[in-house]
């Protein structure tokens, strides 16, 4: 290649620089010196700069030459003969000119971190890697608070060296930059590595080639490269369409070349990871744009994408979220009617945008494609696999918890200031039944954080079922009805609330075609009418309709000055201060002070009892049993129950209900004569000596607890003392057996005098049920069986596993066995109740309806235990309670070793002591369940021994005996 260069004579004795940094520039004279300076100011001194100008039309090359003159021997400047229009040609030229042992690339608008060269050199020399890669940070230069976003930080969490890229496919798949890397120059030369020229996205191919060729790659967690990002990019317009399609075509071509490279190198595993990422990320970026594009763009896009999708491994569809797979599948089928709604869900994750269909006990995204036709999927197996959304649990959601797609079908300005709107709301699986009473209203609210104090509503005139959707029409007289305060509230969001037989669901209006909503409407702001008196419809990036107040041009500058200048600063600082005061007043610390310094000085109220179960999450367990016994005996006392979460549903109506941590809650605790709870009241609250705390606890222990847990032991002595103070609040602690004394009482370091050997009140019902059964000779089923619709001729099994911690945010608990297979095998004999731990959540497919029932929402487990003819558990403490019934128990301990050894350990070996079969696999479980009666007999003795050991004080009168001991004085008369 020809080039002009400034001849810089080099002393023959010059030592080769450790690192050459190739800085490429095109029409960027202003920023070039900053980039170059970031190299010259490196902590590693032995570094040279090679500037390559892509034939700029501004003064970039002059700037480069001046720098070369200023720093002889450290900076050299080159210029390509012809503009290449890309990054590839100048970088290739830089490689050819570089003299350093290592080479880095820097763009003229970015900068290197000060220690970048030193850190990369150290890594390269210690590990001998061909390629060292460090963390890149995207710096949003025009953001007000210096926003910085790390580029795939999980790849750079720690230093690691790879012998081959196949050890970490995500590196090739995600970090496709060429600039945050340091290459051994000999490596580039020997491997003939060059950037492709004449095509965009050259980094993707170059980095893939380098990764694949490198003998060793070292990753360092150091920040090395600041990628300066300008956010105020020009808004997309239709004229960009050609360029966008061309870019997309370039991207696909690069992808094809990378795939070819991977195939040539035999790196098939990497290709698979790349496919997964394509479905999850690359495709999504483009799909999200589709609602804003016209039909011809969509067709061209689909044609290019379809072609590439053919090369994607079908197994990759299993590795992405269902909605990603669905969108890719529908795009491949060019099924626009189903694809565009699916894209809405892709953009708005919790939105339900398709009517769905139930078939053969499963839920599918759409009715189409399920039977397959031709091309590689003759029976529709693949389609059904991809479109199956049963696991997402749409079929068990009530309408008020759904976020339904509401697509705008009509928008017109009827007369001055009135807009007439029409749309269709998705009705998934007929959740809105044909006979339902429907009302609706449109709501206009200002988009702002904090309090929305101005909301304007307009009725929805018509609402009716129309095919699979609910069609609606409304007109809103904005000129009269919408009275914004002024330009402070510039954007107004529109929502449609739909009431279905009294249950409310809220939708946003989605514009599914570009150009549907247009024009300006007059409004009358209360203030600032002179500067703005019109609104114009605007579609948000999520595709939702809103309105923006139109300001006159001059005004914009005025507003800008107001907001950014002194008045704005003043107003904002006042606002922030007010917010800080409010935060402080409502903070936990303030509340705790209030409890100690105010409420605790009030007199204790005789007869006031505060109850709580599982930190207020439930009305259940022994506190409930004690409370009910007190009511049964007609005691005169004042009951307060604490609740938390969405509301006090399910809590008793004849008690005062207070939200946990609310002021009434704290006041009640401070004045209570008794605290009755099964877990813990807030740790920071000191109990008054006049208050008696009855700690019922919530189960005997298999797992190590309290000071027997590693986490507790690790605490320092002062922390342990602090913890002990919270435990010493217990005045009484209920004990079911000497096992509890050896485990819980010891682990909490409780004094002997606090131990109350009366058994658990919650278990009275179980002991009594067994007695009754033995007396009558018959097992009675109560109201719960009817409520759950359990036929009399079927036995009831309860599956109650213990809580399992799952990594990350996924809270769904997956059953460790195939529930459909279970129903098919045992459905004629058993009804299976599934109760996941209250922190986990389970979804059952419609196919098992009536045969397997999710009972996780039931607060109280005791009635479920009483109902069940057999229990399946793993390590849950319900085993100790259920044993009291003398009915068969099954231990499905599929992960026992992991549970016991990787967790905090157990007090005894369940495998030795379990009073029932311990099974490890689904097969073994099925075999064991074949006969309940046989198991009942076989393990009868073992169960008695188990009860004697773990429940010796559970005699059926625990609640009564507690009332006798503590509350007898409140009996009437």
């Amino acid at each position, binding site marked *: 290649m020809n080039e002009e260069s400034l001849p810089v004579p080099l002393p023959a004795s010059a030592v080769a620089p450790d690192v050459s940094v190739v800085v490429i520039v095109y029409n960027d004279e202003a920023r070039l010196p900053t980039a170059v300076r970031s190299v010259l100011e490196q902590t590693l*001194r032995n570094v040279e700069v090679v500037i390559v100008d892509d034939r700029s039309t501004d003064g970039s090359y002059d700037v480069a030459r001046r720098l070369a003159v200023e720093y002889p021997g450290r900076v050299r400047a080159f210029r390509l003969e012809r503009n290449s229009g890309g990054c590839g040609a100048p970088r290739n030229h830089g490689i050819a000119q570089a003299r350093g042992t290592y080479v880095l690339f820097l763009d003229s608008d970015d900068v290197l971190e000060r220690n970048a060269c030193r850190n990369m050199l150290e890594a390269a020399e210690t590990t001998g890697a061909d390629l060292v890669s460090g963390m890149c940070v995207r710096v949003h230069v025009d953001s007000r608070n210096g926003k910085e976003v790390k580029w795939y930080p999980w790849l750079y969490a720690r230093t690691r060296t790879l012998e081959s890229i196949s050890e970490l496919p995500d590196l090739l798949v995600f970090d496709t930059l060429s600039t945050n890397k340091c290459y051994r120059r000999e490596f580039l030369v020997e491997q003939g590595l060059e950037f492709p020229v004449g095509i965009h996205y050259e980094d993707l191919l170059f980095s893939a080639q380098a990764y694949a060729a490198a003998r060793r790659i070292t990753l360092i967690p150091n920040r090395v490269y600041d990628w300066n990002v300008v956010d105020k990019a020009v808004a997309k317009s239709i004229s960009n369409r050609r360029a966008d399609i061309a870019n997309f075509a370039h991207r696909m071509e690069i992808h094809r070349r990378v795939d070819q490279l991977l195939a040539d190198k035999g790196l098939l595993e990497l290709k698979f990871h790349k496919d997964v990422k394509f479905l999850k990320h690359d495709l999504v970026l483009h799909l999200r744009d589709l609602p804003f594009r016209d039909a011809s763009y969509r067709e061209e896009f689909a044609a290019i994408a379809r072609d590439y999708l053919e090369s994607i491994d079908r197994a990759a569809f299993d590795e992405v979220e269902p909605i990603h797979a669905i969108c890719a599948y529908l795009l491949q089928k060019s099924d626009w009617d189903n694809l565009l709604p699916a894209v809405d869900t892709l953009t708005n994750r919790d939105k339900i945008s398709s009517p769905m269909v139930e078939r053969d006990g499963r839920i599918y995204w759409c009715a189409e494609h399920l039977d397959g036709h031709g091309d590689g999927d003759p029976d529709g197996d693949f389609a059904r696999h991809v479109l199956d959304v049963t696991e997402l649990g749409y079929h068990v959601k009530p309408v008020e918890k759904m976020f339904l797609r509401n697509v705008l079908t009509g928008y017109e300005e009827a007369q001055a200031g009135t807009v007439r709107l029409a749309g269709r709301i998705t009705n998934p699986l007929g959740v809105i039944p044909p006979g339902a009473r429907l009302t609706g209203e449109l709501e206009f609210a200002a988009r702002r954080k904090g309090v929305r104090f101005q909301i304007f509503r307009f009725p929805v005139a018509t609402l009716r079922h129309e095919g699979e959707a609910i069609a609606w029409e409304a007109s809103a007289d904005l000129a009269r009805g919408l009275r914004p305060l002024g330009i402070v509230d510039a954007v107004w969001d529109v929502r449609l609330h739909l009431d279905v037989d009294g249950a409310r669901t809220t939708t946003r209006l989605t514009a599914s075609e570009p150009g549907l909503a247009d024009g300006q409407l007059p409004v009358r702001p209360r203030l600032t009418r002179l500067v703005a008196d019109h609104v114009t419809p605007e579609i948000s990036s999520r595709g939702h309709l809103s309105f923006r107040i139109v300001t006159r041009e001059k005004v914009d500058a005025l507003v800008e000055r107001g907001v950014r200048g002194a008045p704005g600063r003043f107003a904002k600082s006042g606002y922030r201060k007010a917010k800080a005061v409010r935060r402080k007043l409502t903070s936990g610390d303030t509340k705790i002070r209030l409890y100690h310094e105010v409420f605790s000085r009030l007199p204790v109220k005789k007869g006031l009892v505060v109850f709580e179960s599982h930190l207020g999450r439930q009305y259940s367990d022994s506190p409930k049993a004690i409370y009910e016994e007190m009511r049964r005996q007609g005691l005169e006392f004042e009951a307060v129950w604490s609740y938390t979460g969405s509301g006090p549903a399910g809590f008793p109506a004849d008690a005062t209900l207070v939200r946990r941590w609310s002021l009434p809650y704290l006041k009640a605790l401070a004045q209570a004569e008794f605290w009755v709870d099964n877990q813990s009241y807030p740790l920071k609250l000191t109990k008054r000596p006049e208050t008696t705390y009855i700690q019922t606890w919530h189960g005997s222990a298999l797992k*190590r607890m309290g000071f027997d847990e*590693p986490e507790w*032991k690790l605490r320092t002595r002062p922390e342990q003392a602090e913890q002990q103070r919270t435990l010493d609040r217990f005045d009484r602690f209920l004990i079911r057996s000497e096992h509890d004394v050896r485990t819980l009482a010891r682990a909490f370091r409780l004094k002997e005098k606090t131990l109350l050997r009366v058994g658990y009140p919650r278990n009275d019902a179980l002991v009594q049920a067994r007695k009754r059964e033995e007396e009558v000779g018959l097992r009675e089923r109560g109201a719960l069986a009817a409520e759950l619709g359990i036929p009399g001729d079927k036995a009831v099994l309860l599956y109650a596993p213990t809580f399992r911690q799952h990594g990350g945010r996924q809270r769904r608990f997956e059953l460790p066995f195939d529930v459909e297979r279970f129903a098919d095998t045992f459905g004629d004999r058993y009804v299976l109740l599934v109760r996941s731990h209250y922190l986990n959540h389970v979804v059952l497919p419609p196919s098992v309806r009536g045969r397997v029932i999710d009972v996780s929402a039931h607060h109280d487990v005791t009635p479920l235990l009483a109902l069940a003819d057999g229990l399946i558990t793993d390590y849950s403490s319900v085993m100790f309670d259920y044993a009291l019934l003398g009915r068969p128990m099954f231990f499905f301990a599929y992960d026992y070793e992991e549970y016991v050894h990787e967790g905090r350990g157990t007090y005894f070996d369940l495998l030795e002591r379990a009073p029932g079969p311990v099974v490890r696999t689904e097969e073994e479980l099925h075999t064991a369940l074949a006969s309940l009666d046989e198991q009942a007999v076989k393990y009868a003795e073992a169960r008695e021994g188990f009860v004697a050991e773990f429940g010796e004080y559970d005699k059926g009168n625990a609640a009564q005996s507690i009332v006798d001991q503590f509350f007898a004085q409140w009996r009437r008369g």
Partner: protein
Amino acid sequence: MTLVSTDPQRDVFFVSNSVNELGGVTSWSHQMARLLTGRGHRVHVVGITPPGVVQELGEVPYPMTTLYAGQPPRPGRAREASMREQAVRLTALFRAARPGAVVVVTQVWAMEWVAQADTRGLTVIGMSHESFEYSKASSRFQRVRTYYKDVDRMLALTREDADLWIGQGLNNASYLPNPLPFMPEVPSPRTEKAVISIGRLHDQKGIDMLLDTWAEIAPRHPDWRLRIYGSGEDEEILKKQCTALGLDNSVDWMGRTSDVPGALRGGSVFVQSSRGEGFPLALMEAMATAVPCAAFDCAPGVHEIVRDGEDGLLATLGNTGELARRLDTLMSDKELRDGMGDAARINIQRYTTDEIVRKWEDLFAFLER
């Protein structure tokens, strides 16, 4: 160590809180000072203040300077004025050095003074002699982030710790391990049925957890004894705990020892139950004496020193049941003890003084490039 290197001979300053405060940092800096002196470098050890508790140093072949005669004024204007004064003295010391001189700041508190001195032309290295996590729980964390931000190299003890500091924005962080304090001629014969623990009787060393652990295994090994060396403020509480757990007839409280190799030779297994460590010398010493270790994996330095399953056994921090199982494994199997003990003595030699001194000289040279 009479071998004089061919590398350039430098002026090296070690700057610590005190030149002779009792503790690991003092032992480390004087060990390094002697080694570098032996290699022909000109070493000067500087302390900011006199120590609280003195560590006996004996004769040293290099000069030592302590800036303050007593404690510096409390933080505030007087402190700042005195710091400027003392910085002038430091500057004078530094200016007198030959080109290529290095300042090694062993503790971040001392860095507050060095930061005020003129270090132009010198290479400044700041060290954190504890694990990242342990530092994070103390006030040193913020000070490391502030005062070591612009030094030429910040040094942690392991790669893992360095990476964590880098994650906090200390982009100049790297690491160097500690050298082996001694290599005894005679290894332990591993004939006595005794488990050895050496460490101050202080919360950090987790002797309370060791007693809980011992309570789980002692009944199964009535012929074994636990020998706890060390003294400290928790002695009384710990002895009470020991009695409460019924362990008095299998635990020996040995008090502080000045003969660590001798103590180690009297045992067949070493146990460490600390809540936090940096790059624990006690483990290195046990391994050098060919005593296999069971330890809580409380810091990157621990799994750096002990190769779990190869020359020792590690347990999750705080999980006394697991530590008990590890001890049980070693105590029940003589062949395993011998195998791991011998492997430990060989493997630990990657931290011999020659190795570590070479790494330091390489680092000095690298930072000049």
